[in-house]
């Protein structure tokens, strides 16, 4: 199980353009739909813990690994998810600097904007609909998205507000 997880997360590492949010739907598809290692609700709860804890949101991979295969699974999942992308960053760092003004780099970057947007919204959607689309979840997610978009409040306020609404509505 750990090997399966490591292999899959390492593959995901290389397609995670846009970062963690972009791969949340695919990870959920694997651990919930395909493997049945946890429910969609548990997946959203693990994500909540990673968001609430201080630190980078990539730590959610460690929690998913931990849920599936204990602490060793957590460390393996985090390493597998960060490793391949890190090696790529390591080896491409110098090359990227030299290509600063290359026209293909600009084309590439422009192409990535709408794709990242679509992927990141998908990540938000699957996390916000653990029991399918319901009005309570839609309310919490829309309120949080609108607050982030329109204000400069620290996101911890939106997470706390989500907790309060969750307590009242579910």
């Amino acid at each position, binding site marked *: 199980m750990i090997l399966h997880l490591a292999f899959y997360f390492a593959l995901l590492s290389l397609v995670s353009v846009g970062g963690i949010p972009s791969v949340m739907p695919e990870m959920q598809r694997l651990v919930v739909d395909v493997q049945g290692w946890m429910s969609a609700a548990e997946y959203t709860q693990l994500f909540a813990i990673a968001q609430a804890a201080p630190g980078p949101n990539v730590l959610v991979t*460690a929690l998913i690994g931990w849920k599936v295969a204990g602490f060793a699974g957590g460390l393996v999942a985090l390493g597998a998810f960060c490793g391949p992308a*890190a090696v790529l960053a390591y080896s491409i760092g110098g090359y990227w600097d030299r290509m600063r003004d290359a026209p293909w780099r600009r084309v590439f970057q422009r192409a990535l904007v709408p794709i990242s947007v679509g992927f990141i919204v998908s990540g938000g959607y699957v996390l916000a609909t653990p029991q399918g689309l319901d009005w309570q979840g839609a309310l919490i997610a829309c309120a949080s998205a609108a607050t982030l978009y329109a204000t400069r409040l620290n996101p911890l306020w939106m997470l706390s507000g*989500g907790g309060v609404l969750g*307590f009242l509505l579910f």
Partner: protein
Amino acid sequence: MVEERRWVAPVDFAEVLALCQFLPGPNVGNVSVVLGRRWFGPLGSVVAFAGLMALPLVWVFGLALLYADFSSNPAVRAVVTGVGIAGGGLFIGTALKLARPLAQKPWGIALAASCFGVIAIGRVSLFTVLPVAMLLGWFAARRDLL
């Protein structure tokens, strides 16, 4: 690193960050690898990455263990689910900010909406969607549609 220690110039830091946002993988993790390499080679990368992750990892496992003890309580579960949904909302808000330059670009909006449709609603694998989307995006960007 930029403001207190002055190890990196602000412009330089922004360049490294831009690279790491574009590359796959966690942004902060990649930044630590690129900067660690610059000063101390491969070992620097490993040390920088481990240093960045160690303490937050303790935190997040601590919280997860705490939650495991209380997860049978429906009220606790409701609160945590609410936090997770709000976290999903934060992603959506972030994407909306990122989407601002697309306002004048109908093809960009169409591409973003299609990605959402096939992934979130259609539940198609990212490994299928990404190559197709990249190809479409590349051609559209070449023709100045994006």
